[in-house]
């Protein structure tokens, strides 16, 4: 399974991958992790690989998270997209949902709380 983590913060990308590895244990070896620091790089990775799950920040340079989601959905792709972001403004959250985000996780969150919110995507994928 190929998984893409998109965040302009290397710290956050590391934390998300850590949480997944800690919770999936040896099953994490069946995941190939891709990282991108903005939506444009993420799009390039997405188009060249068979990404089955995306974790995505909103505020990023070059191409932001919602623009990335709109581009993906415009092709008819239904890959699950989890937005992990510091944006808490309700109007903007609705924008993300309308764009096609499947799940929305607010920062600060890590460890067990983060897994509570994202674990089902791995269970659905049989991991």
């Amino acid at each position, binding site marked *: 399974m190929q998984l893409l983590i998109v965040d302009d913060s*290397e*710290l956050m990308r*590391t934390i998300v991958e850590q949480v997944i590895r800690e919770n999936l244990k040896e099953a994490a070896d069946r995941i190939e992790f891709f990282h991108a620091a903005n939506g444009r790089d993420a799009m390039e990775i997405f188009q060249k690989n068979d990404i089955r799950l995306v974790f995505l920040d909103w*505020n990023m340079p070059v191409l932001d998270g919602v623009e990335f989601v709109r581009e993906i959905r415009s092709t008819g792709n239904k890959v699950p997209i989890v937005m992990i972001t*510091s944006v*808490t403004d309700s109007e903007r959250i609705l924008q993300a949902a309308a764009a096609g985000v499947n799940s929305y996780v607010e*920062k*600060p*969150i890590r460890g067990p709380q983060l897994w509570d919110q994202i674990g089902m995507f791995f269970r659905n994928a049989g991991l």
Partner: protein
Amino acid sequence: MLDFEVFASTLRNVFLQFIGIKDLTSENLPKLPEKFQSVTSRIDLSGKSSATLWLNISHPGVVLAMQRLNIPNSDEDRMMMDAAGELLNIIVGAAQRNSPVRYDFSLPSAYKGDSYPLRFRETTRKTARRFIYDEFETILILEQED
């Protein structure tokens, strides 16, 4: 006007939830330091009020934060600046919910050095508070037009 207390209380909450640091003591800073140490991040806020929020974190503070997050290479400049920027980004985002004044915010930028001045606008009001926990020390500054 943006309420400094919204950001100060959010900082406490973010440091507790994200890094596990509680029992931060604090003191208001009536006068800003002339020189700053270690890492400083800033985010511009826009909307009905325009302002800038600054977060200065001592070197042991950033290292402690990243150790608690199990981040490797925690002493590298790049990671320290990333951590300071992301912490402020999370504070600004989480405070959005509790702020009576709606605002948008920029991407964070970060600086690192041994002793450097920060360039504030002369006409702005600055509200600042220092938070301390053991060797962890951070200064939060809200700069906004009167």
